[in-house]
């Protein structure tokens, strides 16, 4: 039997998805498949297009695995546009003159960016943002430009503006409507978003109607607006919406929508039964979907239909959550409250620039829509409530109000979700499918990823998938395993006891007595940290060296290109001019990128491994010591200037900060430790965000514990008040030793304390009232650590054999020739991928 001919026009994201779907099907063998691909490359990830500017190559973005079309015997006509469909003869003709007879035809032609017919729009340096070729052209022009304008303040416009900004251009966004993202969000949200974006240095101009584009005086172009104002710019990007590419469909007489789009039914069939349309070119029930997920659904439907299976497209959810220029933005369902009698609740926090709004049904029972700006943590919950039409709590506004009393979140547990709840919208994976995967034995995130594809698209569903997994494991009675790793069936705390009680000093002894196998990158650094907390031996001693994370092993922080950064200790942030000069001189001599850190000290980046001992030799000679920026240990004790200078200070915060930093420097702990000391309650040192915070009052020091900045900020708790110097130190000694002994690996003091039964009150009992009777032991052990302190870098540079282990190669004096720097703002930075290629050759 001769095969039927299946012709597919367009190899974009959806066209390729369709090919993947059909190839998987048995029915594939019934077809001979031919593709027309207009672009000069096969399908690539348009959603990630902007990543092209941060160094991703066309290859990285490609969605087609090598040999996919060859291996599946699919003919691809590259860089050839299908230009004519003769429906009577069932014949497709291409621009290059190829003629193919078809039995079935699939149109996946996508859309094109709409360029408003403003006089001057065709001038040089005017671009759209759709293809890799567009981006190549923009990058080239951007390099020669100073100012850039994006016309259109929608989703894509803002994404394009970010790209221009990142290229270093002074960037403007010009929008016709009175607010940004007019389609997805309302006025209130638009105002918050605008403020945030302006803070990033992008100028926003709303209600601007561009009349013409003429040659400029300072720049390439001058854009004149209807209100008499103008902007000069070197580069213009049009992002004023998309239009479906329905031209060939239209010319062949297929039915198209009034405002464009190839009309399809639930089977993705056009008005001609033999012709299907999928993706952004298709118009379903009057709607064009400008997102990839609905296109993927259509691709599956069309493939199933061709294979003679039941499947239909019944619409898709257009809710979105994304980070635009670093600002979290989300919109769900009826964001504009257009439903009759809908009720609206909103929450605006001017200080944190957070805007949240929910739209609920008249009876207060169902969620219709939502808008979130600045904080989208509620998105997952709200989306599930909407998609599954679930009943709302009695007071729906609790869904968006912040939980200040720590009484826990109102977030609905994953338990409450029905089985058909869609968890991953990119790959249409339901809760049921994930539960099924778990019960089939896929009991890790990795396994679930592989078998369902969930989380491998935008990644937005990762947290939710994790929750479903854990709940299922719990239900199956699987113990949530607290073993450190496969080599040790102990927690970190248990391992600490084993080491201390058994007086164990090497990993070999530890694993022989208590573990199995060879260890790994989890238990080895944990053991190294415990050895250091207990015995405080030099960490590059032979048996210890191999246990250390690269940062500890090289006593420096590794950077993305394999070089290291150097952070000398600058206790309390106090530094003499001479020492500053010394740092400057070393930085200059070794051509290091120099930056002030968030911890009141100086970071020197870009040192090659073999340079580290040389650089440190000079720093040590200038009076510096290691800053332990690489270790899970005390980082910095931040200080404010305090009573010595400040007119409000009530105590000498700098001296106390320096004393504390010198006391605890070098203490290895489960995670890093940060302190701060402020000279009065104005709190310029931000002590309440630290593991240990000290604030001066007229009555003595107030001690705050267990604060955290970083990923999950937490304000420290006021632990004790009116302390003198001695008591302050006593309490901190006890607190730290208790933490070091009992915390889990990589657990900051904040999470450790919150997991302690009894929390901060219990901690007070242990530290202040000595309820465990261990206070003295804690203090003694701390003294041992303090007395055995050594500057690891001093030890290293003073031992030529040690210093030699920093050489790049064991058999050569050369260095890594693939480390390349390029200049930026009068310093160096690592070359990106393209720059590397240019320097090193392919």
């Amino acid at each position, binding site marked *: 039997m001769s095969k039927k001919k299946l012709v597919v026009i367009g190899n974009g994201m959806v066209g390729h998805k369709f090919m993947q779907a059909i190839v998987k099907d048995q029915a594939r063998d019934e077809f001979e498949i031919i593709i027309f691909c207009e672009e000069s490359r096969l399908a690539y990830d348009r959603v990630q297009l902007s990543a092209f500017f941060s160094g991703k190559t066309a290859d990285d973005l490609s969605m087609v695995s090598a040999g996919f079309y060859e291996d599946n015997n699919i003919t691809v006509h590259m860089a050839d546009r299908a230009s004519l469909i003769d429906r009577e003869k069932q014949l497709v003709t291409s621009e290059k003159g190829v003629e193919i007879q078809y039995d079935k035809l699939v149109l996946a032609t996508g859309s094109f960016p709409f360029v408003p017919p403003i006089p001057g729009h065709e001038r040089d340096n005017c671009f759209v943002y759709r293809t890799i070729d567009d981006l190549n052209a923009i990058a080239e022009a951007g390099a020669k430009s100073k100012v850039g304008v994006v016309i259109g303040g929608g989703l894509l416009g803002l994404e394009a503006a970010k790209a221009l900004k990142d290229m270093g251009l002074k960037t403007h966004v010009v929008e016709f409507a009175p607010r940004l993202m007019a389609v997805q969000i309302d006025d209130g949200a638009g105002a918050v978003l605008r403020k945030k974006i302006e803070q990033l240095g992008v100028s926003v101009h709303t209600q601007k109607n561009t009349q013409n584009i003429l040659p400029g005086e300072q720049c390439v172009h001058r854009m004149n607006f209807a209100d008499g104002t103008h902007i000069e710019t070197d580069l213009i990007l049009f992002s004023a919406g998309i239009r479906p590419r329905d031209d060939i469909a239209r010319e062949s007489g297929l039915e198209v929508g009034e405002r464009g789009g190839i009309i399809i039914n639930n089977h993705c069939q056009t008005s001609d039964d033999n012709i299907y349309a999928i993706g952004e070119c298709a118009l379903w029930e009057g709607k064009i979907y400008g997102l990839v997920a609905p296109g993927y659904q259509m691709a599956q439907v069309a493939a199933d239909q061709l294979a003679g299976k039941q499947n239909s497209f019944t619409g898709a959810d257009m809710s979105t959550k994304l980070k635009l220029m670093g600002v979290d933005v989300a919109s769900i369902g009826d964001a504009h409250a257009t439903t009759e009698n809908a009720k609206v609740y909103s929450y605006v926090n001017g200080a944190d620039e957070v805007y949240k709004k929910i739209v609920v049904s008249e009876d207060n029972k169902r969620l219709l829509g939502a808008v979130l700006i600045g904080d989208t943590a509620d998105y997952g919950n709200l989306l599930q409530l909407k998609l599954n039409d679930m009943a709302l709590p009695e007071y729906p506004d609790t869904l968006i109000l912040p939980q200040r009393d720590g009484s826990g979140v109102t977030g609905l547990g994953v338990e409450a979700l029905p089985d058909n709840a869609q968890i991953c919208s990119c790959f249409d994976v339901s809760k049921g499918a994930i539960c099924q995967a778990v019960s089939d034995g896929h009991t890790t995130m*990795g396994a679930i990823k592989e078998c369902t594809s969930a989380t491998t698209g935008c990644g937005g569903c990762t947290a939710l998938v994790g929750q479903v997994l854990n709940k299922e494991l719990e239900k199956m009675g699987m113990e949530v395993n607290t073993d450190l790793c496969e080599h040790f069936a102990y927690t970190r705390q248990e391992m600490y006891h084993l080491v201390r009680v058994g007086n164990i000093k090497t990993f070999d002894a530890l694993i022989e007595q208590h573990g199995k196998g060879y260890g790994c*990158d989890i238990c080895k650094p944990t053991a190294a940290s415990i050895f250091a907390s207990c015995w405080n031996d030099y960490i590059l001693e*032979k048996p210890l060296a191999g246990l250390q994370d*690269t940062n500890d092993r090289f006593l420096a922080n*590794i950077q993305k290109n394999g070089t290291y950064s150097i952070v000398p200790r600058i206790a309390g942030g106090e530094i003499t001019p001479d020492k500053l000069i010394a740092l400057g001189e070393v930085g200059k001599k070794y051509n290091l990128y120099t930056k002030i850190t968030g911890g009141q000290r100086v970071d020197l980046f870009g040192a090659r491994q073999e340079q580290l001992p040389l650089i440190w030799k000079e720093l040590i000679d200038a009076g510096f010591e290691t800053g332990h920026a690489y270790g899970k240990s005390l980082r910095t004790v931040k200080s404010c200037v305090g009573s010595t200078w400040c007119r409000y200070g009530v105590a000498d915060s700098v001296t106390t900060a320096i004393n504390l930093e010198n006391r605890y420097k070098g203490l290895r702990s489960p995670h890093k430790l940060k302190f701060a000391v402020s000279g009065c309650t104005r709190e310029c040192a931000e002590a309440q965000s630290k593991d240990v915070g000290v604030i001066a009052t007229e009555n003595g020091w107030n001690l705050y514990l267990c604060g955290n900045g970083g990923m999950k900020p937490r304000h420290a708790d006021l632990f004790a008040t009116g302390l003198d110097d001695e008591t302050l130190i006593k309490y901190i000694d006890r607190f730290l030793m208790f933490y070091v002994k009992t915390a889990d690996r990589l657990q900051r003091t904040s999470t450790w304390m919150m997991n302690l039964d009894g929390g901060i009150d219990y901690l007070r009992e242990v530290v202040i009232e000595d309820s465990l009777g261990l206070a003295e032991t804690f203090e003694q052990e701390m003294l041992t650590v303090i007395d055995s302190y050594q500057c690891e870098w001093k030890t290293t540079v003073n031992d030529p054999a040690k210093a030699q282990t920093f050489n790049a*190669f*064991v*058999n050569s004096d*050369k260095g890594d020739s*693939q480390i390349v720097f390029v200049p930026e703002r009068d310093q160096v930075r690592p070359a990106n991928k393209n720059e590397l290629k240019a320097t090193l050759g392919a």
Partner: protein
Amino acid sequence: MQTAVIDKEIDICALTDLIEDAGTTALINDTQIALFYVKKTGQVFALENYDPFSEANVLSRGIIGSIGADLVVASPIYKQHFKLQTGECVEDTSIAVKAYPVNIQDGRIRLTFLGKGS
């Protein structure tokens, strides 16, 4: 540039130059090789030093250990694991770094290096 295929054993360094249960880097022509010395078994393994995930020459600086029966090294940058025997990546089996046969003779490390030299 003339390219020749080298398939003979090359002498690299003494076993005592390596760090126990850790990695060391060697340079052969322009290729960087990570050498790992597993003390317990007395074995030395050689992998390409280039980490395909971070695209930097760093594998010798990772921590070595075992996953099940396989000896592995964890990339120090993004922590993917590579099998010392084969160079195969544990997290993504479609990716592998080159592995080279190692011969220890009279306390010297010798490598069979098949590849381009100049």
